[in-house]
């Protein structure tokens, strides 16, 4: 593929050429890594540039710029991984790191043939562009000021507006012991708005935001960004009217889009290959079993154009995929990186990701969502006599072994006799991953993906992800309010 060769060429230009490193140097590093009984090895070069601008009290008071640059080297022998990194891309430091990484391997005869480097396949899902440099700095400041004015213009009860813009320009190159070279140039931008509204001494918060793998130009085109400001104000004002949330088991209707964090927590992490290879997930050994109602199909899709969770290649140089996790209620797939795919005897799925060169890769989600069903969302709400309608969420978490997961609503309403009535305060929802989706009784026809601000944390590593779902009804879920 020409495009993947282009990406590799760009990555080499950014990462190897400034250090004077060529293919022979990569081969020498690989030789060092592969001495002893090593099954697989890789070197991950990364240069990332990050900037952020933030506004509060009507003014852009601070901005920050950072550069992270380095290379991580890994040697894998059986289930063992040896890992070291250097934040100087120079041959002596890399050779030293390679020596440290291969320390896990049993000493022995290494049978390595000379490596012939070739560009692996890659997708082309986003533009090769530097978002940091995509617009002048004064425009970034002006946008934040415009967001602030838009939020304040909505309602006099708006007391505080905080807004931030952030961009990342990341170039990576993976050199693998099988001779594959994979490169990627990854833009990422994001805007966040937080509003505090006050009325009669009560203060409530609302948030909005969005982004993706493009530049500020696309992010700021049209009216979308001001829409995030209006959305934050709307949420804060709704919450000013909220009454205490109910406590206990009830029917719950989740809105479309970001509430898909349900899938990320309830089943996503439990279907990552490492936990299933080790047998520590509540989903281990359950392939082919029913884990959801027949209306439910869930995929993890790293191949969506411009999405925050998308990648041309994962951080091990595998092109991303659309992996079906649950098909019509049946568990059909796990998400894999190279190590766990090899140990489980299956194909990698392009889910090997890492926070940076200073971290080991592991199976991670990309964009995880449920496909649309057949019900009109209005019909779903009308079917509930007494329950909760939750449309916006903060974070979530899961214990993959017991399967228990939580996600916290930040905007929710009571449903009474088929109608959405009063707003209620935020509350945490808790359930059991392996059976919560078996109680999904209606799936809407309104699939939406989130607006592009999600970040997933696992074992201390953060990566950008996406989620999505249509409106759906869960027949029983525990709502952690205070009204008994």
């Amino acid at each position: 593929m020409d495009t993947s060769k282009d990406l590799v060429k760009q990555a080499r230009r950014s990462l190897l050429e400034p250090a004077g490193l060529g293919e022979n140097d990569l081969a020498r590093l690989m030789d060092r890594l592969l001495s002893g009984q090593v099954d697989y090895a890789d070197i991950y070069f990364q240069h990332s540039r990050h900037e952020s601008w933030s506004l509060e009290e009507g003014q852009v008071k601070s901005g920050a710029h950072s550069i992270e640059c380095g290379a991580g080297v890994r040697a894998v022998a059986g289930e063992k991984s040896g890992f070291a990194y250097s934040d100087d891309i120079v041959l002596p430091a890399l050779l030293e790191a390679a020596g440290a990484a291969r320390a896990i391997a049993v000493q022995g005869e290494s049978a390595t043939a000379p490596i012939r480097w070739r560009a692996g396949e890659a997708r082309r899902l986003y533009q090769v562009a530097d978002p940091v440099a995509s617009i002048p700095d004064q425009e970034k400041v002006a946008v934040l000021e415009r967001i602030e004015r838009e939020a304040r213009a909505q309602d006099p009860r708006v007391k505080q507006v905080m807004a931030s813009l952030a961009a990342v320009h990341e170039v990576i190159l993976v050199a693998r012991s099988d001779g594959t070279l994979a490169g990627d140039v990854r833009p990422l931008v994001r805007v966040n708005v937080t509003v505090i509204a006050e009325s009669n001494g009560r203060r409530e918060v609302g948030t909005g935001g969005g982004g993706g793998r493009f530049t500020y130009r696309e992010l700021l085109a049209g009216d979308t960004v001001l829409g995030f400001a209006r959305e934050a104000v709307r949420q804060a004002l709704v919450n000013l009217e909220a009454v205490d949330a109910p406590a206990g088991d009830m029917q719950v209707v989740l809105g479309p889009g970001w509430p898909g964090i349900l899938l990320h927590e309830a089943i996503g992490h439990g279907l990552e290959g490492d936990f299933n290879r080790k047998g520590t997930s509540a989903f281990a050994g359950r392939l082919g079993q029913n884990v959801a109602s027949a209306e439910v199909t869930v995929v993890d899709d790293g191949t969506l154009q411009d999405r925050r969770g998308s990648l041309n290649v994962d951080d091990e140089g595998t092109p991303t995929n659309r992996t079906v996790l649950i098909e019509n209620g049946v568990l059909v797939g796990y998400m894999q990186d190279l190590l766990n795919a090899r140990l489980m005897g299956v194909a990698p799925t392009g889910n090997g990701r890492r926070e940076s060169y200073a971290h080991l890769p592991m199976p991670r989600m990309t964009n995880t969502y449920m496909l649309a069903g057949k019900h009109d969302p209005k019909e779903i709400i009308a079917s509930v006599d007494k329950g909760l309608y939750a449309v916006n969420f903060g974070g979530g978490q899961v214990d993959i072994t017991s399967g228990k997961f939580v996600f916290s609503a930040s905007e929710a309403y009571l449903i009474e006799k088929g109608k959405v009535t009063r707003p209620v305060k935020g509350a945490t929802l808790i359930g059991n991953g392996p059976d919560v989706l078996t109680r999904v009784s209606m799936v809407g026809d309104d699939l939406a993906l989130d607006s592009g601000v999600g970040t997933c944390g696992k074992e201390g590593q953060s990566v950008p992800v996406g989620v999505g779902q249509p409106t759906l009804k869960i027949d029983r879920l525990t709502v952690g309010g205070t009204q008994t």
Partner: protein
Amino acid sequence: MTVAAPVRVDTPIFGGDARERLTDVAQAALAEARAQGCSAAEAGAHLSQGLSVTVRLGDVETLEQTRDKGLSVAVYFGTRNGSASTTDLSPAAVRETVRAACTIARYTAEDDCAGLADPDKLARDIPQLDLLHPWNLGADRAIELARDCEAAALDLDARIRNSEGGSVSTYEGVEVYTNTHGFVGTLAGTRHNVSASVIAQDQSGMQRDYWFTVSRRPDALEAPAAVGVRAAERALARLGARKLSTRRAPVIYEAQIATSLLSHFIGAIRGESLYRGASFLIDHLGKSIFPSFVRIHEQPHLPGALGSAPFDNEGVATAARDIVRDGVLQGYVLDSYSARKLKMQTTGNAGGVHNLAIDTGNLGLDELLKLMGTGLLVTELIGFGVNTVTGDYSRGAAGFWVENGAIVHPVEEITIAGNLRDLYRGIAAVGNDVELRGNVRTGSILIDNITIAGS
């Protein structure tokens, strides 16, 4: 407590030359800032190195060498500022980083409160706090200790069927902070950790739990085998957990998670939360928040403690102080910027509090259970359902149902909810089983009433 490693004095990885190099890098950044016309600037540089191993089911799973460095700078042109950081400490990268910060400062707004800490607040005498206890632990020895730790868990009971592993890590770091008031402060410290996370299984399903020991001194760590046994006991105790019906009841937060209640409190009295109006505790100075027996204080100069620091992230001298006395809020948690916003003085908390502690009572956890009688003992919390603006609180929980002071059965898949105002007012006792493995020190906390949501 037994000794994990022979007591000995290991040599630091980073000697005087490393400190000099970092100081030079930070000073070079200040010089470049001056050359760029900045009226003031500050720079911090750090180096760290570590080793981390995980052994799973007896075999090495990961062996990681970590080695990090970095520089961060903030520049001021009058009252406008910008900041930047880099992992490259070469002279060219240092210059570029300062210039990147200067570029940002061209576009940020005038802000009267911005600037370095006032010179009279900067630390003059820097006390030696006994924070550096290197452990020249080779990979082989680390693997052996991690293996001992996990093996003790796996051997304890046939129901310990699986494991996420035993881990050992060691870390040494040195940092230098300097600013154009002429302040130069150096800090070096170590941190060592042994942990185990194992899975118990019976016909009711799988339960995972973990335990860890952490210290700046290798000889103060719990024995690896003791850590493994504790992890296994905790996982076993959770087997057969079930939901509770929805109810209101008293609750005990086990010490290691009771720390979160104090962290939420600090989050609400931080300067940033206060001047933004983003806290349920704005305007609470001098007001009663806790019952009158509660005292919460910080002790930045405790020798050898994990949260100790002679100066904060702006070079401001730290000092012991009461934050809450007789249940009444005595002071906020401020850095120079938020202090100026609030027309107050910095409290030496740029970067956070140091060794926060709540005074404990005389009761151990067992006696606290008896005092509670019937209620919930919470041993794990998950999720992020805490709203600092309103104090609304709703989190996923697991633990044990207690009747007449005795544990009856483990519970899971429930939430506990209320408002932090009421939780703080409802503290009935603080146990003497003090958690020492972090920056927040508390015993288990009994609260008179909380809403439990379940089936």
